[in-house]
């Protein structure tokens, strides 16, 4: 796995971590407030570790990769960029992303670079809890028309998280028919807006040590 591919995963985890944190304080129940806040923290932790590996190869630092690139240079998938959605769409994204991420980690655990494989194994331990949470909600909402509609809408975006060769496995795992994926090229206005907020403090005093 090269630095560019690592950045795709790191960017997904960072941006989704931000999106998940948008539920802090306003989730439908206190328990979900805690859950999405904790999941957000894990995802951003994974992003940091991945940026550190990529930074070594690229001769930069994790912070520079996370905050000093232009929004157009991020490699995140359109799925994770979508701004806070209603609960049905949030759970649809959560369920499909965590399942896609499971497949991605399974492949990454076999990477020839032992540092990447080792990190993937550690991430996967933590992600098990995200998957339990996502599946519990997907089961609970299974027969809700709004949730089924949300799955339809989010599905092409979810396929775009994975490289083409892993998409059939995702379709099988979530029991859906494959459709044309929304690829990771180009970004929505949602990402630009998130980037403005995410990098605001760092841009306010360039080079400062906090």
């Amino acid at each position, binding site marked *: 796995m090269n630095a560019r591919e690592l950045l795709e995963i790191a960017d997904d985890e960072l941006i989704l971590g931000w999106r998940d944190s948008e539920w802090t304080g306003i989730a439908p129940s206190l*328990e979900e407030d*805690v*859950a999405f*806040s*904790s*999941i957000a*923290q*894990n*995802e*951003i*932790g*994974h992003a*940091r*570790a991945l940026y*550190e*590996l990529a930074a070594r190869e690229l001769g930069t630092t994790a912070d520079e990769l996370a905050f000093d690139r232009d929004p157009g240079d991020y490699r995140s998938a359109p799925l994770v960029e979508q701004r806070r959605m209603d609960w049905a769409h949030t759970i649809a994204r959560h369920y499909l992303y965590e399942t896609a991420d499971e497949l991605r980690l399974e492949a990454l655990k076999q990477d020839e670079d032992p*540092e990447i494989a*080792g*990190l993937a*194994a*550690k*991430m996967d*331990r*933590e992600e*098990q*809890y995200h998957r*339990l*949470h996502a*599946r*519990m909600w997907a089961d609970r909402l299974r027969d809700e028309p709004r949730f089924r509609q949300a799955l339809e809408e989010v599905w092409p975006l979810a396929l775009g998280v994975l490289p083409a060769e892993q998409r059939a496995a995702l379709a099988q795992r979530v029991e859906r028919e494959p459709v044309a994926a929304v690829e990771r090229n180009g970004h929505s206005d949602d990402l630009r807006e998130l980037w403005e907020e995410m990098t605001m403090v760092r841009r306010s005093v360039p080079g400062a040590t906090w």
Partner: protein
Amino acid sequence: MSRPQHDHEGRQAARPRSPTASEVWDALAEIPDPEIPIISLVDLGVIRDVTVEEDSVRIEFTPTFLGCPALEVMRDAMAGKVRDLGAEPDVRVILDDSWSTDKITPAGREKLRASGFAPPAPRQVQPLRLVELQRGFRCPYCGSSDTRLENIFGPTPCRSLRYCTGCRQPFEQFKTI
């Protein structure tokens, strides 16, 4: 009272000796976990190795969760302890799967229980299942196993929330990793 050490020709020793690995371990055992201060970093099992070299002490440290905000605090505290012993710290954060909650020492598990945290269940080969998390854990207050999972997630990444039906006490549990 100690006097400055002199060698047999009467010169004052130029600098103190390097600490031994066992002195470093003892010093690290004094560092409390920043978020669960009842337990030390050594109890927690996050220090994988200590190697004393000529002027420096290398510590291999494995974080519990990758997003743990206490990581920097732990790293700085370990570096501080090594400096107190007169050596230069080289703390390396190891980002692999070598830490598990199975590494928490028996003393550490007992300290967790005594302060109201249910210790983690052993790591299993097969993936976690929700049904296994939902039942069977003992309440650290009254010992009843009539407890239920309230939330997989809790106030920090490493904790879940549970409730004891026996003594009507909410409590936290260390997640198995």
